[in-house]
């Protein structure tokens, strides 16, 4: 047994020699890169771009589906909002108007509070020793409940617009109901006409049916 397979020393076996001969044709031979003669860099780049195009459309499709989802969401929200607005408008006529003090009363209340504050202020200035210690640089805040209520409820109570809206809504409802009943009555009458004539025809009377 030689060391030929280990370090290529000694005599190789016959079958090893035969194998070497057979596989020798496939041995590695170093040589420079040879490009084909009709090769061009532009054509190669273009072919690469065409492969990229489907990906662009995929991106567009994803963007469009996202946009559609957003629009559908917006539409759903809008429709829900519209339904709520209609329901509120329908319920408005059942809601009694809120009782709020008249603007004149509110003004009188504020004036009274201001007068009281002015009196206290002048008394404190006249007898500083008797009066309790108050920071006059910043007068105490007078909570004007009437004004707060007025500002809070003004859109509903002090304007006449909601009442007008209710009136128009009711008128619209009335008209729509009238029209619907008229339409249903005509439809019903014509349908029954056809039915009657059909029954007459089946009983062997005058009208011709087909």
């Amino acid at each position: 047994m030689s060391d030929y397979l280990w370090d290529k020393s000694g005599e190789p076996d016959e079958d090893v020699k035969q194998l070497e001969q057979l596989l020798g044709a496939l041995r590695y031979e170093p040589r420079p890169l040879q490009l084909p003669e009709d090769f061009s860099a532009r054509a190669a780049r273009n072919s690469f771009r065409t492969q990229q195009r489907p990906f662009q459309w995929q991106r567009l499709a994803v963007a469009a589906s996202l946009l559609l989802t957003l629009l559908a969401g917006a539409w759903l929200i809008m429709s829900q909002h519209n339904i709520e607005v209609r329901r509120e408008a329908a319920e408005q006529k059942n809601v009694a108007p809120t009782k709020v003090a008249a603007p004149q009363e509110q003004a009188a209340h504020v004036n009274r509070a201001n007068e009281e504050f002015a009196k206290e202020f002048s008394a404190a200035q006249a007898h500083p020793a008797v009066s309790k210690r108050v920071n006059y640089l910043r007068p105490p805040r007078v909570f004007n409940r009437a004004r707060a209520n007025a500002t809070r409820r003004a859109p509903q109570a002090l304007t006449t617009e909601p009442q007008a809206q209710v009136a128009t809504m009711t008128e619209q409802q009335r008209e729509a109901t009238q029209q619907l009943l008229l339409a249903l009555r005509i439809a019903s009458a014509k349908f029954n006409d056809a039915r009657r004539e059909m029954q007459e025809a089946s009983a062997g009377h005058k009208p011709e049916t087909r």
Partner: protein
Amino acid sequence: MKNFKRSFLQLLTLALLVCGASRAACAQIHYPAQLQIDSLESLATRANQIVDVNLPESMLRLIPISAIKSTDVDVKDLKQIIAGLKGVYVKNFEFNNEGEYTQADIAPIRAQLKAPGWARFVNIINKKEGRNIEVYLMTAPQGARVEGLAILAAEPKQLTVVNIVGIIDIEKLAKLEGQFGIPDLDLEEDKHDEKRPDERKPQVATPATRKP
């Protein structure tokens, strides 16, 4: 950069198209059972009396179904009918003389009724009285549910086109005649009037009735 601009423009165009389409879709939902009966408007100049009812779904939603009350009859059927409706369109023309309208005037409507989905339920031809009544129904692909009704009633001095869109029980619709009249809705109508509605003079006070 060029590619980015191009794809941005494409995306913008697509977005605009989608916006336009969704806006158009939101504006009006078109039901397959809805007929275009505006072609009959030309008859308005020749008619003596016109009843024109145009109630799309948005108008029908305004009707407070729960507010419909009647002391003499049960309005359950009427309420059930109204609940399923998606649109009600009626055109009724009364003429002074015979031959004021021709078959060509009704032809566009007949053409629409030949579309798939519509089926002629009844066709009555009364040659002696010169009357022709056709009833068309649009049924759901599955099940026996009626999703649309169209009535074409052509009489010598009267032409009526009725188009009801939505789920409708025709038996209940047939029951309405004579039974209900106008339910008690504080309307200025005679609710005990047992006369047939088409035989009566059309209501002058009704907003849908007008004279040309």
